[in-house]
């Protein structure tokens, strides 16, 4: 074994505080066969070249680099070693700049400490073994779960890059929530208009052939890991071929059966064969087999008879289970609103005309239950409307966080009322106001300028009490200054917090992607990596990750597309770091402690062999399992017990 110790002066950063000659003497005292060389700036192009050449010229096969922090240039020197034909893991860095030269006042002590560190590294590097990156074949196709703004954006971006996307949507309609909103903040653009170009591209655009859109579809199973997932999908029957249906709606009127329309918050009814709402895409009706007479043993075929297209209806369509192989997955399943019945003093669910923001959105939408007419449950035109902000938000008994979008939605309502239904009195009850961003303040200012607007600040949601009185809603309140009052309104709109969707838990369990304390999908890092989950190859975007508005959801969708395109490249294999854990079968007692402690579910238990197994694609190399294993059966590559103990042995001398 020929060890080279390379001592970087880092200009005078190191040499000012550490005497290389003394260090050399100490090093040679420990091992006189060591090749010791000082380099001025080892990370410079010239320095790297000197290093590389020196490795070759002296047949070095183990390296100790005494330089800056390994967090700074470990990668740089590993690459140089590879170029010199040496396995890059046969190197140990010694941090003599950040952790010795720059922090030790006394030159003699700094020199001693540097020598000690180098000797410890010599001990350690002697035990290093060559490690090799593994390469695995991958599928470059991706799965997108949820066809809302984030999912659509990712799907289209990936498709435009010429790559295949499986886009699944649980509902018969794509576009997520915003397509149901008449206007969107902050620019009062129409929701469907904003999203239709994107949806049209996904459905019929130049790259649509790269997207396999599956509506009424859910993920029910998954095996594999990053690069090679095999997912099982359940496709519920639509009973209508969306490629043949021309969306003429001829079948709808004659249909004899109806049910509450969940796409309009159950505020009106739809037929057994119907669109979710006018303008819904894909432009195809669907049959609700819970309502249709054919599933009640009646031979009704009125819809098929009314249909001008041959074979558009497929009455005998069955549920299908299909499998798809993909390299990466995006979860973009959206969210829901906080259940307002949990705050009984607001009267939601008991009093007529106390609505959620979502219900109000549908009422003022041209394709909604009232065709955009602003009317109460008694079909009267409301003259006064109260909007309650922060419903369930910033409240330790409900949701502790601020969703950050409800204020803008409330001011959007104000603007919409002022424009479309002028003269309506609008009361805003709020706890806090949140309108960040360069465009977002405008709607608040407009609401302030609206002569019909009034603002009342309250402290706790329990300070409000809504009741029915003389055909109106009375809102009794105690404001932030504890001043009591009562106002009357014909309609009350509650702006509840955004909370995780109903399917988050199930999908979290199925895909083994963690949820945060609120139940949103947990990101790898809140600031720098909000679209990666902690499960490699599974990404998260949109409101299933955190409450957010469309701009951020779209951005996250784009970010995910970036990760997918750069991580999975056609013709390139997936590189797996060798710094992972591995189980020595003979020592494993099968206690499964490692399975419990692994934060990445990278360890599975082979019931037949009675041994644990580490999936090195999922392993992040933290070494928690290595320390936890009571049998010493797990090796932490590059951080083995022996290597670390060898380092400890010298570091104290």
């Amino acid at each position: 074994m020929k060890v080279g110790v390379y001592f970087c002066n880092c200009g005078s950063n190191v040499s000012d505080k550490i005497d290389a000659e003394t260090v050399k003497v100490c090093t040679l005292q420990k091992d006189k066969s060591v090749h010791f060389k000082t380099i001025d700036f080892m990370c410079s192009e010239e320095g790297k070249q000197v290093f590389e050449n020196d490795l070759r010229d002296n047949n070095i096969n183990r390296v100790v680099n005494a330089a800056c922090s390994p967090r700074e240039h470990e990668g740089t020197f590993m690459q140089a070693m590879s170029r010199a034909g040496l396995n890059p893991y046969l190197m140990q860095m010694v941090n003599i700049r950040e952790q010795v030269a720059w922090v030790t006042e006394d030159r003699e002590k700094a020199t001693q400490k540097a020598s000690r560190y180098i000797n410890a590294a010599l001990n350690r590097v002697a035990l290093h073994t060559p490690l090799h990156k593994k390469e695995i074949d991958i599928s470059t196709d991706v799965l997108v779960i949820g066809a809302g703004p984030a999912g659509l954006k990712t799907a289209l971006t990936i498709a435009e890059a010429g790559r295949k996307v499986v886009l699944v949507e649980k509902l018969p309609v794509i576009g997520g929530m915003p397509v149901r909103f008449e206007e969107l903040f902050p620019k009062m653009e129409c929701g469907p208009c904003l999203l239709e170009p994107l949806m049209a591209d996904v459905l019929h655009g130049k790259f649509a052939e790269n997207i396999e859109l599956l509506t009424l579809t859910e993920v029910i199973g998954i095996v594999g890991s990053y690069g090679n997932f095999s997912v099982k999908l359940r496709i519920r029957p639509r009973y209508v071929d969306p490629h043949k249906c021309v969306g003429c709606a001829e079948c709808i009127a004659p249909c004899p059966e109806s049910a509450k329309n969940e796409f309009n918050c159950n505020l009106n009814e739809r037929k057994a064969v119907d669109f979710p709402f006018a303008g819904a895409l894909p432009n195809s009706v669907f049959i609700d087999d819970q309502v249709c007479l054919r599933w009640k043993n009646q031979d009704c075929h009125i819809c098929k008879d009314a249909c001008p297209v041959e074979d558009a209806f497929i009455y005998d369509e069955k549920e299908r289970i299909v499998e798809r192989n993909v390299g990466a997955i995006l979860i973009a399943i959206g969210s829901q609103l906080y259940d307002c019945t949990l705050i009984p003093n607001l009267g939601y669910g008991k009093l007529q005309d106390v609505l959620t923001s979502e219900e109000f959105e549908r009422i003022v939408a041209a394709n909604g239950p009232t065709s955009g007419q602003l009317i109460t449950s008694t079909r009267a035109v409301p003259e006064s409307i109260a909007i309650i902000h922060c419903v369930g938000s910033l409240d330790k008994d409900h949701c502790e966080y601020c969703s950050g979008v409800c204020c803008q939605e409330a001011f959007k309502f104000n603007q919409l009322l002022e424009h479309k239904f002028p003269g309506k009195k609008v009361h805003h009850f709020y706890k806090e106001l949140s309108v960040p961003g360069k465009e977002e303040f405008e709607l608040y200012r407009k609401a302030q300028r609206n002569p019909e607007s009034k603002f009342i600040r309250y402290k706790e949601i329990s300070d409000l009490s809504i009741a029915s009185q003389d055909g109106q809603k009375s809102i009794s309140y105690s404001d932030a200054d504890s001043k009591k009052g009562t106002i009357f309104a014909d309609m009350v709109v509650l702006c509840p917090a955004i909370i995780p969707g109903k399917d988050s838990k199930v999908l979290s369990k199925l895909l083994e992607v963690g949820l945060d304390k609120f139940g949103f999908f947990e990101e790898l890092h809140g600031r720098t990596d909000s679209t990666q989950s902690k499960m490699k190859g599974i990404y998260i975007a949109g409101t299933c990750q955190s409450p957010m508005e469309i701009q951020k959801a779209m951005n996250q969708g784009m970010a995910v597309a970036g990760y997918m395109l750069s991580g999975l490249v056609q013709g390139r294999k997936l590189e797996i770091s060798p710094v992972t854990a591995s189980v020595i079968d003979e020592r494993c007692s099968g206690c499964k402690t490692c399975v419990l402690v692994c934060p990445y579910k990278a360890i599975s238990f082979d019931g037949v062999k009675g041994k644990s197994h580490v999936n090195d694609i999922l392993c992040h190399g933290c070494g928690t399992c290595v320390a936890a294993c009571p049998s010493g059966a797990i090796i932490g590559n590059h951080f083995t017990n022996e290597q670390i103990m060898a380092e400890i042995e010298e570091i104290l001398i």
Partner: protein
Amino acid sequence: MSLSETSEVGIRNVGASNFEPRIVGFLCNWCSYAGADKAGTAQTPYPPNIGVVRVMCSGRVDLQFVLSAFAQGADGVIILACHPGDCHYKEGNYRAAQRHRLILRLLKQLGIPEERCRLDYVSAGEGDKFVAIATEMVESIRKLGPLNNKIH
């Protein structure tokens, strides 16, 4: 000689003059090691008595590393982790905290007082906190005196 026998020697040697404590610090790569680097870039000095061993995660710190450090003659051991909730590997620091409690119980049986084995949290930005902890650790071990535990 076993650890428990040698610890007797350690107790007798408390108060030796010119005593320079020897401390092993296990620092996780992502937070506390970066915090120590931060102290470096800020050029904030601290006593040179701590020998740093870098591990990827504080959850990697094995009980035997700590015992080995004491057996090699360390007067103190410090494990530095990411702050609760900030672990790069989600929860390795919680494992480290659990293991630290176990280590303390074991050290007690060996006659090594728990002040000699500390666990603390330093983020990548907390260079000053690293310096404060390192300095304080060196001073507190200096007061405790040498452990004289080295097994030959």
